């Protein structure tokens, strides 16, 4: 299968303002240190790593919210590494993102209907009202929710709106950045089930960023483990969980709490 993303030697450094001298430029802080990987069409790619491993930064580079300082990112054959906003705009429809915190990623002044409709209008879709209704239906929200404001929804419902907003554009790729970490366990399960179903139904390519390996194991076909801005492992999920190669991966795996069948309720 063809590769949707082809990333070569990706580097990203940001100015470290905490160590900026009074005069002169701040030292550069390397976040991503030369990453090489591909995301095949139709794959569900898990990206794991601890805090500060660079996984969210990597995600933001993939949807070009950040511009890499080195290397190249090709999306479906097009080099998007240094494209400017105007040149990116027609491509934007094809890679979408679902954010970690649905409260801050949904504009509190717009109704749910508007939130989903606006991107559609920007990209010149026809039958916007119908598409909004279908997107809401897809994520299991009643059509009446279009008239609500984000603060009138629960956390799980808000995250569904975030998903509806992304899939309404019929993208090829969706980046999900820690989308269940802010939800309670039952909402997590619901949102994950929903996402799983949508990926299969719509034939999406998905990158799923998480620090929770049990979630990754359930959802992803392939896992990339990041540690301090370097890929330490990039393999099929089953292989990774059966025989982790890198020491860091083993550490992460050991951190998963396993249910103990012998334990009884006291």
């Amino acid at each position: 299968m063809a590769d949707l993303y082809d990333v070569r030697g990706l580097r990203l450094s940001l100015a470290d303002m905490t160590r900026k001298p009074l005069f002169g430029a701040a030292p550069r802080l390397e976040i991503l240190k030369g990453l090489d990987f591909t995301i095949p069409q139709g794959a569900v790619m898990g990206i794991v790593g601890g805090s500060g491993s660079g996984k969210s930064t990597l995600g933001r580079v993939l949807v070009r919210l950040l511009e890499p300082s080195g290397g190249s990112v090709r999306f479906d054959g097009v080099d998007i590494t240094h494209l400017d906003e105007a040149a990116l705009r027609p491509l934007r429809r094809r890679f979408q993102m679902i954010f970690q915190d649905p409260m801050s990623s949904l504009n509190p002044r717009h109704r749910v209907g508007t939130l989903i409709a606006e991107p559609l209008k920007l990209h010149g879709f026809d039958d916007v009202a119908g598409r909004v209704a279908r997107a809401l239906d897809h994520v299991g929200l009643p059509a009446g929710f279009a008239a609500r404001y984000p603060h009138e929804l629960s956390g799980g419902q808000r995250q569904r709106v975030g998903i509806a907003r992304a899939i309404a554009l019929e993208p090829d790729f969706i980046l999900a950045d820690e989308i269940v970490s802010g939800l309670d366990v039952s909402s997590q399960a619901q949102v994950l089930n929903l996402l799983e179903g949508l990926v299969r139904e719509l034939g999406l390519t998905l990158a799923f960023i998480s620090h929770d390996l049990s979630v990754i194991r359930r959802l992803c076909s392939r896992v990339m483990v990041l540690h301090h801005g370097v890929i330490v492992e990039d393999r099929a999920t089953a292989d990774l969980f059966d025989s982790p190669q890198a020491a860091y991966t083993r550490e992460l795996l050991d951190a998963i709490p396993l249910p103990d069948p012998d334990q009884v309720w006291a």
Partner: protein
Amino acid sequence: MLDGRGSVKRRAGARLWLSAGWLAVLVLAALLAPWITPKDPLAQDLFLGRLPPFWETGAEPGYYLGTDSLGRDVLSRILYGARLALIVALVAGSITCLLGAGLGLLAGFLRGWVDVLISRFIDIWMAFPPVLFSILLIAVIGPGLGSIILAIVIIDWTRFARVVRAEAMAQGAMDYVASARVAGRGRLGIMLREILPNVLPTIVVLLTLEMGIAVIVEAILSFVNLSISTDDPTWGGMIAEGRAAVYQAWWVLVFPLITLFLTVLSFSQLGEGLKDRFDPVLR
């Protein structure tokens, strides 16, 4: 999935109704002044000088709030004074708001050199003492309605610019801005469609405060006789005249002062009340 969150309504509160009510009365009085004032506000009658308000002994019928030392009806002058006060409040407040909020939004959202330029300009601007600056300005360009408005705009735009800049910066860091970028919206679109609606409640509160301030500034300038021509009644001018005779005729000072006080208070409370009522985000 359906729950009651969509049907939560908030009470408007007495604050909004009282302040809006007072301002509505004032607007009506200003619009209808020629028809509802009991006397000609400019007519002098030295035989009727310093008449007390209606409940005191020695009051003349028809002069409800008494007369000043030249025999001019206090109530009629207050009603006519409302015209100037409201025109200044609305026009100067709006222009100040547009200029200040516009610059603040640009600085806070675009950041970079635009922000540096506008922020340094604000810093420099705020180093001028405002009252002296306005008096100097009017002394140079001459008194008149336009001069008052210009003085208020030139002095007070920084009030909007600073607050709106800070607010736009905070909003610009929110994920919904990144989300709009992912959706393919341009910078101008993000500023006007995403950030502006979130800064608007702050702007409305500032605008109503500014209208109150404009009324005060106009009164101050009238007090030092730098407002419009001295014939036309202004609240500040009445207070200045009343001050001279406060031991003989307290009403000439007190009634315009109460009107001014209630008006400025109503403007500030109107802003707070509107914010409470129309902010869709329950904070």
